[in-house]
């Protein structure tokens, strides 16, 4: 299999990387090692040691940072940006629809059972239309590249995608260590993200709010692997970081305890999963949430971002229908392609997949973080046969995709620069407007030949540049 190298075309350096190429060539090896150690020390000092969304693993482990940036030209980015915004609009239209009249189901464009029997479908919010009809306010869309012009969406994250603090910190650290690089290149900034996030949250305040909206970040607490990110974002937005016990319901509203007495809260950016939000509506044993929150939410007294129930749009089984959503709701052709996906609960797909396991990637429907997946071409015969047994036991739990030829970016390894596979997670903000900061989080598979970029599987991160015109 041949892979698209984002920096080199044969031995020629692609245009966006021209200056970086000089930078690397003139960098002495000992200087590079010194800088790498400095970067690591900076990350440790900041305390940014957490796992990316749902990946589990050691929360205190540092995700390796690679100093070689990944670069997009303005025109490449514009194209991606349009595709991401389109997809975000469709996902929110879908959520609004399936919690309302469900026209897409009535039209037979998506199977009813896939929606209504989905664990993430919350019947408690059927009929509730959040402000501006937005359910998912921060959408992380994972993209991979296979050629100069071909990008595919691997998955959508509509609940509480994490990792954006890495995007911000990667840039911060690069600018601190290599200020010269940023003088010589026209690189679009990303540090406006916290302001945009706050603006987005404020724009979806409930109608009952008639002052500047009070926003908070609701965290499960410091035991959570993404706690650093919760406090980081609250801090940069200039809003309070709260735990469930800091909030309470009184009458028709939610309040936060402050040293000046109770203060009404209008918008909650929650980093707690649905089942734990409110013991009076969901899991009665949850100690993390706010009792009565859902009644206030459902009667329009507070906004919750993302809206409870938003997860029904980002399930791996629903994923296969996102291009259909774009056509159905927007009347447009999808600009971003899905990866071809075989669903193993269909007989034809099952047969095909079982006959071609060595060539395919097989994933659990509800799995994440690169666990419980088979990368056929990278697996031994024994590994494939073991996985075959797992599929036979529960075909409905799996989907399969072709093994994609993920693009590579040059990455610092012991011997110098070497190509490693990458993906990209841009963060799309949806409020009164749909906005993106240029770039996103680039994850890189540090092991030679590996196609799994998840940090739990030896993945690292890179600064991601979008060059201005």
């Amino acid at each position: 299999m041949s892979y698209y190298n984002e920096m080199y075309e044969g031995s020629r350096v692609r245009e966006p990387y021209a200056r970086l190429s000089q930078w690397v060539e003139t960098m002495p090896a000992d200087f590079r090692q010194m800088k790498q150690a400095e970067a690591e020390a900076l990350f440790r000092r900041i305390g940014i040691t957490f796992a990316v969304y749902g990946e589990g693993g050691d929360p205190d482990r540092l995700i390796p940072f690679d100093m070689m940036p990944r670069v997009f030209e303005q025109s490449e980015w514009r194209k991606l940006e349009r595709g991401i915004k389109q997809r975000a609009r469709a996902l929110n239209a879908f959520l609004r629809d399936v919690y309302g009249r469900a026209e897409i189901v009535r039209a037979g464009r998506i199977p009813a059972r896939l929606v209504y029997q989905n664990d993430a479908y919350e019947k408690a919010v059927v009929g509730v239309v959040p402000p501006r009809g937005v359910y998912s306010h921060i959408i992380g869309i994972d993209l991979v590249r296979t050629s100069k012009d071909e990008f595919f969406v691997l998955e959508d994250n509509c609940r509480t995608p994490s990792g954006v603090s890495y995007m911000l910190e990667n840039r911060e650290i690069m600018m601190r260590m290599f200020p010269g690089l940023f003088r010589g290149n026209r690189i679009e900034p990303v540090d406006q993200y916290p302001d945009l996030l706050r603006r987005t949250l404020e724009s979806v305040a409930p109608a009952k709010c008639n002052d500047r909206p009070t926003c908070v970040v609701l965290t499960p607490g410091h035991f959570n692997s993404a706690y650093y990110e919760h406090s980081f974002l609250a801090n940069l937005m200039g809003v309070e970081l709260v735990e469930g016990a800091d909030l309470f319901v009184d009458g028709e509203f939610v309040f936060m305890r402050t040293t000046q007495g109770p203060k009404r809260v209008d918008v909650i950016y929650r980093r707690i999963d649905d089942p734990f939000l409110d013991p009076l509506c969901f899991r009665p044993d949850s100690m993390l949430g706010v009792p009565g929150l859902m009644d206030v939410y459902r009667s329009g007294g507070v906004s919750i971002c993302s809206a409870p129930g938003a997860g029904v749009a980002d399930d791996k089984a629903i994923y296969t229908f996102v291009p259909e959503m774009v056509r159905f709701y927007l009347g447009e052709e999808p600009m971003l392609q899905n990866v071809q996906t075989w669903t193993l609960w269909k007989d034809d797909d099952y047969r095909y997949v079982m006959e071609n396991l060595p060539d395919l990637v097989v994933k659990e429907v509800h799995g994440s973080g690169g666990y419980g997946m088979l990368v056929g071409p990278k697996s031994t015969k024994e590994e494939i046969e073991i996985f075959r047994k797992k599929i036979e036991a529960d075909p409905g739990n799996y989907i399969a995709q072709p093994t994609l030829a993920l693009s590579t970016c040059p990455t610092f390894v012991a011997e110098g620069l070497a190509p490693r596979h990458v993906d990209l997670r841009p963060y799309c903000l949806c409020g009164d407007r749909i906005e993106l900061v240029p770039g996103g989080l680039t994850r890189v598979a540090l092991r030679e030949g590996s196609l799994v970029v998840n940090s739990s599987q030896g993945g690292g991160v890179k600064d991601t540049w979008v060059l201005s015109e």
Partner: protein
Amino acid sequence: MKLRIFHQTVYRYDRPVRNLVQSLRLTPSVFEGQRTHDWAITVSGGTRGPGFRDGAGDWIEGWTVRGPTEEVTVTVTGRIETRDTAGVLRGHRELIHPLAYLRDTVATEPEEGLRDLAGSVTDAADPLALAHRLSASVSDAIAYAPGQTEFHTTAAEALAQGQGVCQDHAHALIAAARLRDLPARYVSGYLRSTTEGEPHEAAHAWAEIHVQGLGWVGFDPANRCCPDERYVRLGSGLDASDAAPIRGIAAGQGIETLDVAVNVEEVERFQNQSQSQTKS
């Protein structure tokens, strides 16, 4: 049937509690079988919070009590006129798709006994007949025996035990119906007890099964019948916890005890106080 209802729940705490929050599903459903004349909910020392009709058609009312307090009383009084609709929930406005009621919860998680029970009905002519047969099977399999099960008893446990109360009957029927691919849900409400010594309680629960072409149909395996004019429907959910008339929580270390009094009384006619419906 004209019914006068009095339902009082007294929560007592051994130490004062504060910030008590409740979500109440204590207002009769609006459908052809019920017409509410007047209805009043009060929570002692409480502030009425949000009230809204949810996607299942239930009227939900939030209440908060700041406290500190050692006692909270939830009182429901109302008058309602009921009509027998042969168990069919006709004219009930709701938005949730029936397929959302095929999902199991811990209380209705199927196991072998439930699978056997669900599979034992083999000759039902149509889904309605199947639902009736499943309900009868549950009545046969679980004897009415108060005090033998508790709130957290699952359908599987009650079936294995062969004893239970209306909650257990409803859970078992819901589990069995879902195993046969029939959407099913838990209904909480009141029952006018007509015969002395019969197995039913004034605060009652039963199941509804969705039958294509007919909609939601109530089945009460505890009393071997479908709900008629003796029944007052309050609300529904995936199981007893999800459909609970009162869900509440308080801050503090106080240990809670509770007393419930329910009285459902048939009256000849309503004194002319208020003819309007409280909530619609």
